[in-house]
């Protein structure tokens, strides 16, 4: 298999990069000029592309690789990959579902608690010595609150299950109502936002869900509402979010992803009702290793003519 050419177009775990290097003829094309050079010399030999949340093959790249057979993504989200083009060209696509569900759900609850109970601010308060001057202020209880989940897929359902342990009420919005679900369905995101205390974005990023969290939704969530984004930065109209937080029209936010990642909106740095994380969801060693193994196993299965483990296309 060492002669099979594979192109890497997104940042991945070093372990994965090393294994790809060992098993295949690996070309690195994350950087645009790197990629251009690789395409110039090797476009016609590349049979597989490895993508991630930071980069994936668009229509142009897929067209430029005539021998492309499979795209294996080191992520569950495949918004960076032109799936339609892959379908047209008969290119297989795999992702890494399930292995990161629990971890992302754990982190989501952690983010909610961090915002409502001001955990990061409390930690700053103690480290700065301010506790000697007086107690920290009253914060907001999480138990018993109403959680609104945007996208009741694997991750959304896992978040709901954990929130039930805190006696939260759960409601959701999905493209279609789920008849087997015990949770309350709202047919629009604005209605969901109006009726919950904490709104969690847990749906895939598609053209339809781009900026699904807009000014109207943010205003509906309101001055006591909290937005948690563990989906993709582009789910949220970020400038609108920033102005709502600065003006107090939104009660708080916990963000693991950003519209122009890895750029983080500086205006939010001083806000005590905002918790920012450097895209750590799915970042645990166990999960990233499991994701890497899934990428490798899918590629191996493909080239051995066996069924793919986690195909999307």
């Amino acid at each position, binding site marked *: 298999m060492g002669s099979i050419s594979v192109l890497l177009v997104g940042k991945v775990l070093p372990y994965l990069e090393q294994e790809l290097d060992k098993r295949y003829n690996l070309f690195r094309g994350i950087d645009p000029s790197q990629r251009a050079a690789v395409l110039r010399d090797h476009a016609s030999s590349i049979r597989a592309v490895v993508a991630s949340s930071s980069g994936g093959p668009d229509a142009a790249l897929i067209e430029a690789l005539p021998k492309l057979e499979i795209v294996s993504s080191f992520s569950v989200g495949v918004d960076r990959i032109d799936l339609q083009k892959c379908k047209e060209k008969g290119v297989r696509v795999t992702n890494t579902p399930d292995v990161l569900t629990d971890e992302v759900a*754990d982190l989501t609850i952690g983010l909610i608690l961090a915002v409502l109970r001001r955990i*990061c601010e409390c930690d700053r*308060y*103690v480290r700065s010595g301010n506790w000697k001057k007086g107690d920290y202020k*009253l914060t907001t209880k999480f138990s018993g609150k109403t959680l609104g989940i945007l996208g009741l897929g694997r991750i959304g359902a896992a978040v709901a299950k954990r929130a039930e342990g805190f006696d939260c009420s759960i409601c959701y919005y999905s493209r279609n109502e789920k008849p087997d679900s015990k949770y309350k369905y709202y047919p629009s995101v604005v209605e969901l936002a109006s009726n919950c205390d904490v709104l969690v974005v847990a749906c895939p990023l598609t053209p339809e869900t781009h900026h699904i969290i807009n000014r109207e939704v943010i205003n509906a969530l309101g001055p006591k509402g909290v937005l948690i984004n563990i989906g993709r930065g582009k789910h949220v109209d970020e400038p609108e979010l920033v102005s709502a937080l600065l003006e107090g029209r939104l009660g708080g936010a916990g963000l693991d992803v950003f519209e122009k990642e*890895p750029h983080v*909106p500086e205006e939010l740095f001083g806000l005590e009702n905002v918790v920012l994380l450097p895209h750590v969801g799915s970042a645990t060693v*166990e999960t990233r290793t499991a994701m890497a193994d899934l990428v490798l196993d899918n590629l191996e299965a493909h080239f051995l003519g066996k069924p793919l483990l986690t195909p999307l296309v």
Partner: protein
Amino acid sequence: MDSELPALLVLGPPMVFNLFQSHYSHKYRFLNAFSSHLPLPQFLQTQQTHPSSVRAILCSPRQPVTADVIRSLPSLGIVATTTVGADHIDTAECRRRGIQVVTLGSQFAPDVADMAVALLIDVMFKISAGDRFAKKSIHFKPWSFPSGSKLGGKRVGIIGLGRIGGQVAKRLEAFDCIIMYHSRNKNPSVSYTFYSNVVDLASNSDVLVLCCPLTEQTKYIVNKEVMLALGKDGIIVNVGRGALIDEKELVQCLMKGEIRGAGLDVFENEPNVPKELFSLDNVVLSPHAGAITLDCFMDACEHVAKSFDAFFSS
């Protein structure tokens, strides 16, 4: 002056007092003894109040309701505190006099349990450290932040499976944690594995959560031996009392990596916190804020107000 309103003598004051006063100023004539350095009888004189017209006290651990205080108020019939413990009230004297003592029940247990889970997830996923990291610069380098560890499958040893411990267990079960516990007595109504020995519990746990009261028996219940038994991947969360843990040993273990991390809401000598902890990223520190939520304070105020209502109307 509303002389028809019943007088309420306030000692302490309780942390909830500002909230209580703002909600119930129409129901009581507050005698804020906490703001005066005068002995009680003289203070009451400045309030044009005879000691015999004081039937109710609202207090907190900050200012004890001693036998002297009780004896100086011949009509005292109810003493309410916004804490679970009543160590700061001479309950023997109250019993002698037939004075009702009102304490909080389990109103705040969910809030404290929430804090325990919040601290645990923060340590596991480095949330506070991540927030510090993300807010340092307008660009973060992807994959440059150390990764954490998920909760599923972790063995959580709860020390004290009472009101708070039970709520912690319920929450962590939803994360697929395996729950075990140590308590004074085994609880026959739970299916969690019971350990009569804390070192054994620690040896078989990935996480220890302290939820028990501080007594002579539980002082330093988590000592060096327990921490070493917990091991280098172990995490400690304390929402009980600071002196449940040998703090000096804890600091050493954290600095040397003998345990992986800790989430601490309480300390031996609050509000003093060992400075060595301030430079560590594997600890999350909280200023005894487990029950300091608006909901919790409102519940406490309502509970006390209901007790006073029942007393004054009988």
